[in-house]
């Protein structure tokens, strides 16, 4: 495949955005044996954009492709189709040795605070590591920046945590170390991939508040990847729902959660067990979900459509920014 020329003009939203994905797809080759190989389309024709200082939540179940999109957005993966733009530069196929600038300006927080931190390194060493790699030689400067990062994630007093090992910390505290590490080079964009799914319920808000604070005070933009649509309501400016490698609906929380249109979004919302007396003992309309090993879960289209049919997002009439990939319901909404 020929490398696409970087001079092709992106559309207006993409140039204004800090991060923009334009019809991005990702096809993984699978080896099923010596002579057999297959293909899995993890992501098909996904477009999204994130403005400076904005948080976009990417909501979906396992196998929906949300993590793949997150990794493509900071070029931890090279897409097999489409374009990825960062601050106006086409990074879709930029070779790794030319991506040094991006590694400073974009960072990632991983899901698992138990396995993503080296247990033999102190908190201070863990957080300073990206600085060492970036060539910050002065120890005093590194320490000063580690202290500031610890303060930014509310691990205070910083001195108490700097020489601690992650094994002596709670899940919530470890995840804050992960965030401090992502923060240390002062990125403009952070991919937070399920940052609280392995943290106890009562510690989640605190971590999400730290992320929200970084967004508001430092103007950091976030791609918040989560399976928890309720948390997306409170910690994101916009929500995009992914299903089978495609975005099926996007908009504000009010649009997507309070007035969902796509059958998948509706089913996903109905399946959430809210702690609400009015919501108890209800049979959740989940019977139509297909649940096969290895296959992504999918819902039969109530309008008789095919799940493999090409989908593109339609603008919901009269609702700026509310996009839906349902060709039956979207034109009729409201």
């Amino acid at each position, binding site marked *: 495949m020929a490398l696409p020329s970087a001079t092709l003009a992106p559309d207006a939203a993409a140039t204004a955005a800090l991060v923009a994905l334009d019809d991005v797809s990702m096809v993984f080759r699978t080896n099923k044996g010596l002579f057999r190989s297959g293909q899995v389309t993890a992501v098909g024709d996904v477009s999204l954009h994130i403005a400076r200082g904005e948080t976009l939540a990417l909501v979906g179940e396992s196998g929906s492709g949300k993590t793949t999109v997150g990794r493509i957005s900071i070029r931890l993966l090279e897409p097999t189709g489409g374009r990825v733009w960062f601050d106006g530069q086409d990074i879709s196929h930029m070779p790794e040795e030319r991506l040094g600038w991006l590694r400073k300006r974009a960072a990632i927080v991983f899901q698992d605070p138990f396995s993503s931190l080296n247990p033999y390194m102190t908190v201070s060493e863990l957080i300073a590591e990206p600085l060492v790699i970036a060539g910050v030689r002065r120890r005093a400067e590194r320490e000063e920046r580690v202290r500031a990062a610890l303060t930014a994630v509310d691990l205070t007093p910083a001195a108490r945590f700097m020489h601690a090992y992650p094994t002596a910390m709670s899940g919530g505290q470890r995840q804050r170390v992960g965030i401090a590490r992502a923060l240390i080079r002062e990125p403009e964009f952070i991919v937070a991939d399920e940052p609280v799914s392995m943290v106890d319920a009562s510690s989640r808000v605190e971590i999400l508040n730290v992320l929200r604070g970084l967004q508001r005070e430092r103007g950091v933009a976030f791609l918040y990847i989560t399976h928890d649509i309720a948390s997306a309501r409170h910690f994101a400016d916009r929500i995009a729902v992914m299903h089978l490698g495609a975005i099926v609906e996007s908009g504000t929380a009010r649009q997507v959660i309070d007035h969902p249109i796509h059958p998948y979004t509706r089913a996903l919302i109905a399946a959430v067990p809210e702690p609400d007396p009015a919501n108890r003992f209800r049979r959740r309309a989940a019977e139509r*979900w297909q649940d096969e090993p290895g296959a992504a879960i999918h819902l039969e289209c109530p309008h008789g459509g095919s799940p493999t049919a090409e989908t593109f997002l339609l603008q919901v009439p009269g609702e700026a920014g509310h996009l839906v990939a349902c060709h039956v319901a979207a034109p009729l909404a409201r």
Partner: protein
Amino acid sequence: MTPLLAVDNLHLWYDAGGGRVVRAVDNVSFALEKKGEAIGIVGESGSGKSSLALALMRMPPKNVARFDGSVRLAGQELTTLSDDQFRREIRWRRIAMVFQGAMSALNPVLRVGEQIAEPLLLDHRYDKPAAGARVRDLLERVGLPADFASRYPHELSGGQRQRVGIATALALDPDVLILDEPTSALDVSVQAQILNLLKDLKDAPGISMLFITHDIGLASDLCDRIAVAYAGEHMELGPAERVLVTPHHPYSQLLLASLPRLHSDVPPRPMPGDPPDLSALPKGCRFRPRCPYAFDACREHPPAIPLPDAGHARCWLNDRNVAGARFETHLPTEARLD
């Protein structure tokens, strides 16, 4: 009426080495009153909720420091039974358990059918053909096709494996089913399917359940009553609806306030402080260091103060004599926290 399962003053403590003792289950009492009733045990990691399951199944780990209390099943005291009697008459036969982790609880080299049939055959209760028929019956009851009996666990999705786990637990028609985080590794849509199945089993044949989870929403969806576990104790017990709307323990209130709500813009509030070190618990009330309402009385360890709905709350604010004027003001109509 004799309750189906009555647990009184149950203790399961661990020896954590170096003279430290972890009070994983500490003076826990509750009862499943009747057939088809479900109690949700809600707690975060380290609250002792899984240890409670191990205590009831009499499968404690090796480093036990204290294991006592009373467990009565339809009036019969179980704690005085020998291990052998308990194994033959109670475990799996009358009290069965579904384990956390749909992925790892099944033996990867056994076909699903063999797996489910294991307790049937061990017991000499069924011969092989009868066990086969029973397996097909059980698979259908948990919503799987009968021919799944010849599949291996790796050929199943997470939700299907958890259904097999439930079928295995149901094999000997237990009265009580203990479920330890049965949906924690599953997607929300698959979780909803499993919950639908559990709701069916609760209605008919009327299996009673102890549903252990960190998710109070999930517990309230299935359970009639909820116990809120913290640091080895049940801080609060009551009808699910009452606990959700007017929690009587500050920990329950703060836990509910910390959850992001799907249909409300009220921002979730972080829980103050850190969970306690279970081998060095605070003196007095175990929640005191994190509690915004703490007052002098909280230096004294609070008993389980009975509530009018037959539940309890381990908080002095519920004792009119001790709390004085606070008694009137602390109880929320909504969660009144400001």
